[in-house]
């Protein structure tokens, strides 16, 4: 056991004895009968299927779970949260050890508290009543440790990238000098560069302080080399213990490989099997009707010299000033049965471009034009289409499924589009079946799991039978099972003649879909190139059959 470390940090020990927790208003416990010892300085990766109570355990250790009627022998009231057994940090309840553990969550936006960099790092230390001079010493040290020392202390936190925000959150945690660092899917919302940034910062800080680490993450390969123990939890039940497997990373990954794969964990060296793309209208399309009306490779939608920005024109007094485009000049074609993948670093305007192409954001310059095959009389500019004209032609799946929920029931959600259009309700059952939502028809969309929400959001958009499907980061934060299902389904859609445009960082996903890759760079230059599958043509002439 390491006795002494730099920076005045004493690593914390965690002990759980028969610990369980039931959230208020739930009938089943989130965690049940957990027995666990984590020694000071250990680095633990926590795995398990969704619903295994990983986040609940982290929140409990951070001392931020609500109040409970802690096993006082009285009749349990199902409206109150219920705790059983004991969960201790250094032999004391986490709630009584404020500042002993620091927690980082998934959403970078809510990991920032204050609007200036230095103030945000100082926030935790202030709350722990650290003297002022000491606070600023810690702030400088922490910013140095996470690699943000080059920014001024009054740098606006809103101007940071996702990866920088998470590193800032880490600095804020480090300034509290915690003995236990808790990371709840800290990189799930980040691009590949951001993931490495955060992972490496965490590694450096642990090497320096020797603090204990517990991290929850689906992508094992990111954290495997940094941790020295993997614990696999299973969903709470009355009979089985919470810990399924516990041991050294290599050993656990070998022993539990099949089980982890079945649970949707991204095990290193394993790419989930997906359906292979075949020729347009090929023989192995299971349930989808082939789009007879379209010829393969038919041009549907084109962007010419397109300049995009999410900002609206600004008003300066009476004048209207057009925003500065993030991308000044993009040219791209969308063709029936072909995939267009948009890649590039965060902030390069990928999503903005896709949403402009999808008729949701007006172009700042250049134009988006639909060919007659797509517009079918609705006009050339998708942004000018009415909402119901749009959904029957171009369907867009947003990054956050909840943004698109418009009803309170899964079935209503799926029927919403067809009802508005007045046709196509027969497709709903097929989609329910195909995306494994049949058992959830009466559920409230907001209560679904992450993977279910993603499948539902794809299904609802497809219910309107659009010829072009646009997806913004469809695989972000998804487990391996949902990923494989989605990739297979989209490849099938492509073979049936739908055009699929996706914004993604995911190279495997790009590979499965094939087609053209359009890479956008942060400098605002677009460089079209042919993707790994080398299927689609790129840089062909403008749409000739467009309606006036």
């Amino acid at each position, binding site marked *: 056991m390491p006795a002494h470390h730099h920076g005045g940090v004493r690593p914390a020990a965690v002990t759980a004895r028969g610990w369980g927790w039931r959230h208020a208003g739930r009938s089943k416990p989130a965690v049940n009968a957990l027995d666990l010892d984590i020694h000071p300085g250990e680095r633990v990766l926590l795995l398990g299927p969704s619903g295994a109570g990983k986040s609940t355990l982290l*929140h409990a250790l*951070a*001392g931020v779970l609500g109040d409970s009627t802690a096993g006082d022998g009285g009749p349990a009231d199902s409206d109150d949260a219920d705790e059983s057994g004991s969960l201790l940090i250094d032999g004391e309840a986490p709630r009584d050890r*404020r500042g002993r*553990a*620091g*927690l980082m969550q998934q959403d970078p936006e*809510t*990991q*920032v*508290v*204050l*609007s200036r960099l230095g*103030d945000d790092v100082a*926030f*935790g*230390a*202030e*709350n*722990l*009543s*650290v*003297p*002022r001079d000491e*606070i*600023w010493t810690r*702030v400088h040290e922490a910013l140095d440790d996470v690699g943000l020392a080059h920014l001024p202390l009054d740098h*606006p936190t*809103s101007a940071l990238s996702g990866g920088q925000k998470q590193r800032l*959150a880490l600095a*804020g945690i480090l300034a*509290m000098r915690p003995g236990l660092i808790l990371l709840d899917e800290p990189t799930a919302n980040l691009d590949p560069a951001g993931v490495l940034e955060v992972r490496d910062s965490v590694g450096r800080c642990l090497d320096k302080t020797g603090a204990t680490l517990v991290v929850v993450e689906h992508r094992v390969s990111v954290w495997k080399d940094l941790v020295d123990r993997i614990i696999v939890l299973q969903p709470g039940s009355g009979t089985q213990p919470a810990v399924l497997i516990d041991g050294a990373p290599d050993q656990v990954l070998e022993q539990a490989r099949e089980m982890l794969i079945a649970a949707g964990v991204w095990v290193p060296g394993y790419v989930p099997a997906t359906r292979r793309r075949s020729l347009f209208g090929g023989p192995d399309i299971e349930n989808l009707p082939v789009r007879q009306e379209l010829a393969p490779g038919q041009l549907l939608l084109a962007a010419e010299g397109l300049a995009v920005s*999410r*900002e609206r024109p600004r008003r*300066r*007094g009476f004048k209207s000033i057009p925003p500065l485009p993030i991308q000044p000049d993009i040219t791209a074609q969308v063709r029936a049965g072909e995939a267009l993948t948009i890649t590039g670093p965060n902030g390069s305007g990928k999503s903005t471009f896709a*949403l402009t192409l*999808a008729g*949701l954001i007006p172009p700042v310059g250049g134009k988006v034009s639909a060919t007659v095959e797509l517009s079918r009389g609705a006009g050339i500019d998708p942004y000018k289409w*009415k*909402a*119901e004209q*749009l*959904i029957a032609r171009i*369907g*867009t799946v*947003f990054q*956050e499924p*909840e*943004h*698109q*929920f*418009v009803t309170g029931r899964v079935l209503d959600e799926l029927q*919403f*589009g067809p009802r508005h*259009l007045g046709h196509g309700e027969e497709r709903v059952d097929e989609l329910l079946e195909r995306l494994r939502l049949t058992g959830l028809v009466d559920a409230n969309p*907001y209560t679904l799991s992450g993977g279910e929400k993603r499948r539902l959001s794809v299904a*609802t*958009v497809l219910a*309107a039978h659009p010829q072009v499907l646009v997806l913004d980061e469809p695989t972000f934060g998804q487990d391996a099972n949902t990923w494989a299902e989605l990739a297979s389904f989209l490849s099938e859609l492509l073979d049936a003649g739908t055009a699929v445009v996706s914004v993604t960082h995911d190279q495997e996903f790009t590979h499965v879909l094939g087609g053209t890759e359009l890479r956008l760079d942060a400098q605002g230059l677009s460089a079209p190139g042919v993707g790994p599958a080398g299927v689609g043509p790129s840089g062909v002439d403008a749409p000739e059959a467009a309606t006036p």
Partner: protein
Amino acid sequence: MRAALTISGNHAVLTRANPLAKFGGVFLITLVLALSIDWMSASVALACELLLFPLAGLTFTLLWQRGWPLIIAAAVGGWSTSILAPDSGKILLDVGLWSMSEGSLELGLGFLLRGLAIALPAVLLMSCTDPTDLADALAQKARLPHRFVLGTLAAMRLVGLMAEEWQTIGMARRARGVGSRGTPWQRMRATLGQSFGLLVQAIRRATRLAVTMEARGFGGASRTWARESTYSRLDIWVLLGGAAIAAGAVIAAVWAGTWNMVWLERS
């Protein structure tokens, strides 16, 4: 987009003054202007405020960008007062129902100037005051409960995010076939639905932010402050300046014989 009203990178003199002193100064001016509705006190105050612009790092361009709704509101208020107020003195303009007389014009002008003189200090104050510094002063100097002050400050940061979220939800719903165009009834329904979506997201975000803050030890009875909110000699000048402008406005109005206490007006 999220910069709100504070000018980033502002290093003008008044940014160094304590926010409470600035509030005090502005309060004195506004108090006097609320007492009387005459053009003299308003124009003296307005002239002095315009002279203070460089001290707050404001320029006329910046003022117009930030304060144009207020300026237009004051102008519209002044105009309607001058054509709708009861006539007195020589009639200058008469178009059916609308008429403008010397008396009503004077009243309208007073209204316009006072509107500007009350609105400008608010723009002035916000452009040279960082919300974090204001929170520090409110908690450390005005002794407001720190949980309330810091909770509000953190929530304000989310308001900017919510503006972006509103835009995103609007697009996401259009992609589901919910049009924000159409008849007023359809538009109202669409807006209601969008508001519900925003509310859900706001609650989610707020819950996560609350967890972040609690996990950083927020909510205890006592805490230290990394930034000390202090008063300096500058703050005395700020208060004296506010008092001088207020006094100057009263004296000028009394001297010109236009001082007109609001509650004595109807006697």
